[in-house]
């Protein structure tokens, strides 16, 4: 899963925000590795979310993977690095996720169906060809966001807060 992208020569690549850590606690190897894999893991988590309806994955699993990406970032760079990566309060993804999931249900209700009744559309998108979208996707995205919010919250309270 590692990214073969070459690293800038010169100054050692560092995680944004990691300079707030004591020099003793910093690890060049860890920071570099996290810098390399962080975005890849996030993209992978999105893939899991999108592919989940037909292959292993889904919102919960995707959310956990994304959460673990943030865990890595926190372990390598401390809470400042985590804050750089996610400059919002954990409550934001939590709330957004709940609203999205519940909103999917309510939308079905407004469209004359039952609460959370599913619907699907097939779109012919340029480049991607025929794409099938179901109402499960926004719902699953809600699950994804809640799980990410949970992990961020735990990182912030049990991790970052306990640091002080």
């Amino acid at each position, binding site marked *: 899963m590692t990214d073969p992208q070459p690293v800038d020569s010169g100054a050692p690549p560092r995680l944004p925000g990691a300079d707030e850590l004591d020099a003793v606690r910093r690890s060049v190897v860890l920071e570099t590795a996290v810098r390399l894999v962080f975005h890849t893991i996030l993209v992978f988590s999105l893939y899991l979310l999108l592919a989940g*309806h*037909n292959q292993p994955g889904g919102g919960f699993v995707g959310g956990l993977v994304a959460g673990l990406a943030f865990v890595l970032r926190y372990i390598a760079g401390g809470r400042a690095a985590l804050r750089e990566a996610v400059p919002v*309060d*954990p409550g934001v993804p939590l709330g957004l996720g709940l609203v999205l*999931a519940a909103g999917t249900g309510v939308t079905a209700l407004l469209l004359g169906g039952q609460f959370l009744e599913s619907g699907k559309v097939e779109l012919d998108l340029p480049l991607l060809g025929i794409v099938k979208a179901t109402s499960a996707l926004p*719902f*699953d995205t809600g699950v994804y966001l809640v799980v990410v919010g*949970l992990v961020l919250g735990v990182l912030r309270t*049990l991790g970052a807060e306990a640091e002080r």
Partner: protein
Amino acid sequence: MRRGPALRRPREDVLLALVLLHLVLALLAPVAAARLGRRVFLLVALAPGATAVWAVTQASAVLDGRPVVSSTSWVPGLGLALDLRLDALSLLMVSLVSGVGALVLLYCAAYFDRDQPGLGRFAGVLTAFAGAMLGLVLADDLLLLYVFWELTSVTSWLLIGFDDEDAESRRAAQQALLVTTLGGLVMLVGLVMLVQEAGTASLAQILGDPPSGGTVPVALVLVLVGAFTKSAQVPFHPWLPSAMAAPTPVSAYLHAAAMVKAGVYLVARLAPAFAVVAVWRPVVLTVGLATMLVGGWRALRQDDLKRVLAFGTVSQLGFLMVLVGAGTHEAATAGAALLLAHGLFKATLFLSVGVIDHATGTRDLRLLSGVGRRSPVLATVAVLAALSMAGVPPLLGFVSKEAAYEALLGDPVVFAGVVLGSVLTAAYSARFVWGAFARKPGCADTVVHAPSAGLLAPVVVLGLAGLVLGLVPGLADPLVQGYASSYEGEPEHLALWHGLVPALGWSVLTLALGAALFLAREPVRAYQRRASRVLSRVDADRSYDRVLDGLDRSALRTTAVVQTGSLPVYLGTVLLTLVLLAGTALATSTRVTGDVTAYDRPLQVAVGVVVAIAAVATARAHRRFTAVLLLGAVGYGTAVLFVLQGGPDLALTQFLVETLALVIFVFVLRRLPATFTRRPLRLSQGVRLGVALAVGGFVTLAVLVAGQARTAPPASQAFLDRAQADGGGSNVVNVVLVDFRGFDTLGEITVLAVAAMGIASLVLAGRGRRSGDPEGETALTAAGGQAVDEPGTPAPEVVP
């Protein structure tokens, strides 16, 4: 539902619209207050004002026997409908609820300071209360009536506790809420029984054809308990005097005109149909008379003008209860008249006290002196109202008291009680006027700031209404007769002058004795003080405190026993309960056949052995960190088993959760000692081992039994069949999660969100602003912000 919407005319639609108007304005008020300030009260007064005006336009039709009826479907599944009905009694109540309500709201606009905080919320809640009260007196469905009933309890709680920084007002609000909702719940049981017995929840139908089954007396007593708590009858009355902690307009509206009348209203509503039931009259008359006497007696002893009025209200509510509960035509006439009279004079008096409080800064009648000379308009109006309360001609209070005496003459015991209560009423009325307005010897004149016209106007209107209706009783007569005609009998018209009848003699005697009691106030006071030492043992207010204390203490004891704070004990309790209850059931009722497949592939055995070894090693580990890693091995091993079994989604999730759990464990470990306690007690170790083995055995058995217990075809086949067609996906696990069981998932992610906030509150509680890091505070706000104000709790010690 019951009455089809066939004949819908605008007249009917207005009824529901008016109730909704209250709601809309209540929601609007906090927003509008930001712009309008205290003028927001003028806006929200539109709702009760419009209702009162509309009610007047409907009066002639309603009193002709054509009630306004409206029915809107609400929860058809439960047979609940928004059935509203405006008949004569409702009209009488609406005139109080909305008429007085509008005036009180206008009064509020001048009463509060411009910069009083929380005005928008207050205006909103007061309007919501007016709407709930309106719904209560209009409801034609017992369950709907109950809903509005409890809405008034909740809004009244918010209103009494308006000054939420004052411990006394918080206590008063809680007392009112606890007492009235307790009664409300008891009443609900009674109402449900009545509805069951009658086969309908419609008030009109129940009253038209009252059920007479064996449970009806019980149901009625339960309903009466609700009515008694709401109308502050003995022994539930103390909440009303306590509620004087509320702002004065609230007292004038809720505790004089509207909410406390709800119980009286309910009794008045039910009496025509149920007063014949044997249990009704003894209960209502005893409680009513006792309340009238206790309230009057206590009113004589108070020094706070508002509390004088509060106990006076208790007394008058008892009187009303007697009249509307007596179940005769004459008594109902008198009761309806007194209902109107009391609403008018008591609201006037409360508002006057508000003006006095506003103008002088005190309500203590020992400190006030010479207020009457300084504000003659106020004094005149308040004296008129007090005279009406005492039953002096030519005011409406006199007219209704005459009618009451006439009606009750036939029953010597009740009559004697009512006369005695009225003597007390006359005495405390006199004491109120003296205390509020007279110039007292040895007391310097109180400094009076002239009250504004806006503050005085509603008081004057209310006070004069009592005079006009007294001078021209014919104005109120149709309203009163409209209700009284639900009883058989010749109409007994209200009149100022009945001729030289016995009732007039009794009235004169009442006033004379009342005056004597007032003039002898010093000896009376000394006697009351002596008596109160004995009586304090049965003081209902202290009983309330004792009941609450007892509740607190028993809760503390229970908590001390149940919540020991020891994690092993909690876990042990949960696990042992599982083993003992479910395990016993499992072991005794099912049999496991030998037909068990031990494993599908040898690799499963290998993984199983690894998991088992890791589990044992976890339990034996000495360092916490080692234990956590080994526990992780157990989890990953289980995930491998899932893979081998062909469940990629489950395995993936298990891997990820295990990893996350490991990380969280490590975070927590930073705050715990590095090793477990060195010398665990032998006994405790043995017990733990026993529990562990029992649980392990139970789970093994449960798995074996569950594997063989299937009798119905598995649901999974249907899921497999429908996944692509209905869910539009080929990953069945995911389709189940987001579609077939979407509701469950929604619930689960809600739990996740709550858990995230819970963790934040628990971990951050007490850490607050100690280090002043903004990040910590944002996390706290996300957690509900409760913990912010608790600095100084020591953080757990960090052991490296």
